[in-house]
């Protein structure tokens, strides 16, 4: 049975291996890897003595979520299903005894793995250095769980970017047009998400909430009780009201809890919600790209 499975998945593994190897040899990927390492080093060194660990790691991850690395990631996604690469795919793979699903899945997976590889190759060492190195700033309580969760969140966003690139490349067939469409889609996404009260899923909000996530412990039990802080806030509010009453002024209204996007602490950040928020569009993009790819003429 294992041998049968091995034979059945041989084309998929062959396409994945071939594409991954081809990507690793490309100049775009090599330059990107060098540039990410350089930028991360610059960000860390210039903020080494001033910024606490959580915001510093979030700053290192910012280029993947907002600018400029998302552009490279999307270009990598666009490439295999558009332009001359599509012809090479037809002559090289699709006229052989492989299904289009194998072909699409293999090339998509190769890009996702490559993007994750480049991202983790830089982000993991940088996060380790920032967390474990002795720096002249106060420890802001970054947890191992928080670091892993933050890295996973960014990895999921990168997977969505590759998938959107794939979808646009399949739909539009022209690489340049697909990249322009992706730019038009990615940047106004904050406004669209705000309209539907989904600000926490926007890349900028996500980046702002990363410091909170980085400080989160594995379980609620090990978290410092937040009731104390709430109690203190309630106590302060009561005291302020009492003083205003004594001084003859009107009592101040109780502060309304701000919306997710407006608050700076992002205490109600939900990892599951964010993973689903990016995971579901990823699945939809891949599914739609598959449908388009299946109906396409080469």
């Amino acid at each position, binding site marked *: 049975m294992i041998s049968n499975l091995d034979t059945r998945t041989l084309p998929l593994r062959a396409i994945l291996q071939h594409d991954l190897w081809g990507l690793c040899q490309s100049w775009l990927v090599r330059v990107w890897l060098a540039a990410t390492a350089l930028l991360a080093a610059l960000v860390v060194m210039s903020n080494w003595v001033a910024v606490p660990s959580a915001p510093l790691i979030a700053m290192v991850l910012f280029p993947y979520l907002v600018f400029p690395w998302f552009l490279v990631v999307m270009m990598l996604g666009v490439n295999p299903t558009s332009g001359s690469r599509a012809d090479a795919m037809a002559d090289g793979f699709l006229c052989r*005894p492989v299904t289009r699903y194998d072909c699409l899945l293999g090339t998509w997976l190769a890009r996702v793995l490559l993007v994750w590889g480049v991202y983790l190759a830089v982000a993991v060492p940088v996060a380790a250095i920032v967390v474990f190195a002795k720096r002249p700033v106060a420890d802001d309580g970054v947890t191992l769980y928080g670091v892993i969760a933050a890295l996973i969140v960014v990895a999921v966003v990168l997977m969505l970017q590759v998938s959107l690139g794939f979808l646009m490349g399949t739909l539009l067939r022209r690489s340049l047009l697909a990249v322009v469409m992706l730019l038009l889609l990615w940047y106004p996404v904050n406004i669209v998400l705000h309209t539907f009260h989904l600000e926490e899923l926007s890349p900028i909000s996500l980046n702002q909430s990363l410091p909170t996530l980085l400080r989160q412990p594995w379980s609620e039990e090990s978290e410092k009780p937040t009731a104390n802080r709430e109690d203190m806030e309630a106590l302060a509010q009561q005291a302020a009201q009492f003083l205003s009453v004594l001084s003859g002024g009107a009592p101040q209204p109780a502060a309304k809890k701000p919306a997710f996007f407006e608050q700076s602490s992002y205490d109600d950040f939900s990892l599951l919600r964010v993973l689903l928020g990016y995971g579901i569009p990823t699945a939809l993009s891949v599914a739609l790209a598959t449908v388009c790819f299946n109906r396409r003429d080469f």
Partner: protein
Amino acid sequence: MPPAIRTEHLTKIYGNRLIAVNDMTLTVPEGAIFGLLGPNGAGKTTTLRLLLGLQRPTAGRAEVFGNPCGANAVAVRRLIGYLPTHPNLPGNLRPVEYLDLLGKLCRLPREERKPRIASLLRAVGLLGLTDQRIENLSTGETTRLGIAASLVADPPLLIWDEPTAGLDPSARRFTLDLIREMGKTRTVVVATHILGDIDQICDHVGVVHEGRMIFCGTVRDMKRRLRRDDFSLDLEGSGDDLRRLAEQAGLVEGVKVRLQDERTLAVEILDGRPRSVALAEVLQLVEPNHLTLQTVQSGQNETEHAYLQLLQEEEAHGFQRFDFQPRHKDTAAEGNPSA
């Protein structure tokens, strides 16, 4: 036993604008060397890509050894070795790596794959270039690698799209010999617009014009159907002698002659007169008129002429080309001229 290829009313229209394949019904018998002949843009490549499932038909259906063709028809593509025109191969790979990749795509186990690759590279004469990247190979070498690639899975049907395009004479000779050799054990379909190739290697031919199959049958049938009972006599001698010969030959029963140029006499034999007898009578007049016969050319052997005549007839049919016949009366294309 199902035929190697069968299409029924296969039609491909791009975006309601361009009709690439027009109601094509075709049968390629197993074991044939089939030439798909037509001018550039006639729809040959589109037809082949429809068979491979690279394109989806607008209407009609296609089968390969009884298996329906389609985008995910792995069973069909397992039976086909495809060589595209000027194959777009991954330039960063070396020939062995490329063939190994294709072997994996064809699900060949390692122990079967490796010896076959070595054997194929030797057969196509690329054994000395295994350390070169594909991007550094010449056009002829790339085509030979493409040929090896089409044979990796040892398929029973080879579909080669213009395999001699851009090749030098020796590479062309090699490819034609190979097709002839392959035709002994496999069905081979060769799409080309080079009539000389068809003449040399094919036993069956399909002529495509503007996306439509205007003739499908054996090469012999095509020539017989378009037989022109005429000959060209290439003669050496004076112009006066040649004109005298033309006058005398014109008196032979059932023969019409005309001077093509200063040394060529065209002899047309009319219906009802045995060809050999009429020609012998004309030839008997050559020596008495102090002329020397250099060559005799028969119009019957000219595939080019037959092909061009087919295209002209097709054009001349005008609106008659519209298919008035009910669908169920379709004739099998094999051996029957469909024009």
